[in-house]
């Protein structure tokens, strides 16, 4: 971790990465644990939110438990010189939750554009993938859809305490 994250921020991350205390005054509980004032904890959390060090504070649902039982990672081999234009269009689709340009790993892996599609069934996801396929047209040379079939681990970030 770099100098931009000082020791107190780091201790706050370690104290909250598994979750915020489920007590009426969670920031006060953290303050007691860290030996600082509740105002300091709240100011640090606010500053980390504003600087994007905290993306958001809230509930992280298990997708499967809330009805998104099909989770398809669609992967596409498109020309590198068109990828930014195509990626931006794919990312703007309302059913795409993440879209990234990633490196190929030839020969095992020819795909350079990744778009995550969530739905209530594989059929729903595949219908959406067909829409992406149509949008890409001739730019799509190969594609595949990898469905998650098991969650093997989902703890999120864990830095050493």
């Amino acid at each position, binding site marked *: 971790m770099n100098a931009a994250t000082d020791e107190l921020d780091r201790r706050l991350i370690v104290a909250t990465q598994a979750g915020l205390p*489920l007590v009426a005054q969670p920031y006060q509980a953290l303050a007691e644990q860290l030996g600082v004032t509740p105002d300091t904890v709240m100011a640090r*959390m606010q500053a980390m939110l504003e600087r994007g060090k905290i993306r958001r504070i809230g509930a992280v649902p298990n997708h499967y438990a809330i009805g998104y039982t099909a989770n398809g990672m669609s992967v596409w081999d498109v020309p590198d010189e068109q990828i930014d234009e195509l990626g931006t269009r794919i990312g703007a689709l309302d059913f795409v939750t993440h879209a990234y340009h990633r490196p190929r790993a030839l020969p095992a*892996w020819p795909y350079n554009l990744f778009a995550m599609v969530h739905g209530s069934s594989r059929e729903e996801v595949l219908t959406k993938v067909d829409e992406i396929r149509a949008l890409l047209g001739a730019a799509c040379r190969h594609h595949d859809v990898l469905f998650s079939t098991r969650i*093997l681990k989902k703890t999120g970030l864990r830095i050493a305490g």
Partner: protein
Amino acid sequence: MRKAQDMGNTPEIDAVDRRIIDALQGDFPICDRPYAAAADRLGIGEDELLSRLQSMLERKVLTRFGPMFQIERMGGAFVLAAMAVPEADWERVNDTVNAFPEVAHNYRRESDLNTPLNMWFVLATETKDGIPATVAKIEAATGLPVYPFPKLKEYFVEMKLSVRDAA
């Protein structure tokens, strides 16, 4: 069978749980009594919100409740990586990979084209150098190659899913 979660088991959630999930995926207040403030917006009591969050965490409806850190803004890195794990060796490799604290999430993935890359995980490390170091450690521990897929460009990222009506 494994220390993993089956995709099919869907815990029961009622209308109040749904409202909590839909309303509290972000914007949780930073104030003295944040649960009371959030509960007020939802029209329920502070105690009820706390006990429902506790219950949803225990039932694994929620995987976490708290801040989502963007470690890349703090000098760290998140990188997607994959391995081609032979079926006969699955249990051993799964246990070995999951034992690394740098492995934040891990999913088994399969495709109709039978892609050989069937284990996909996200590495989260405090420094950028931690990624190649962890990749090398996982390769040494498993004896299998790890393919890192760092993002070269992110076109969109937003992950706020509303609760679906039961199919």
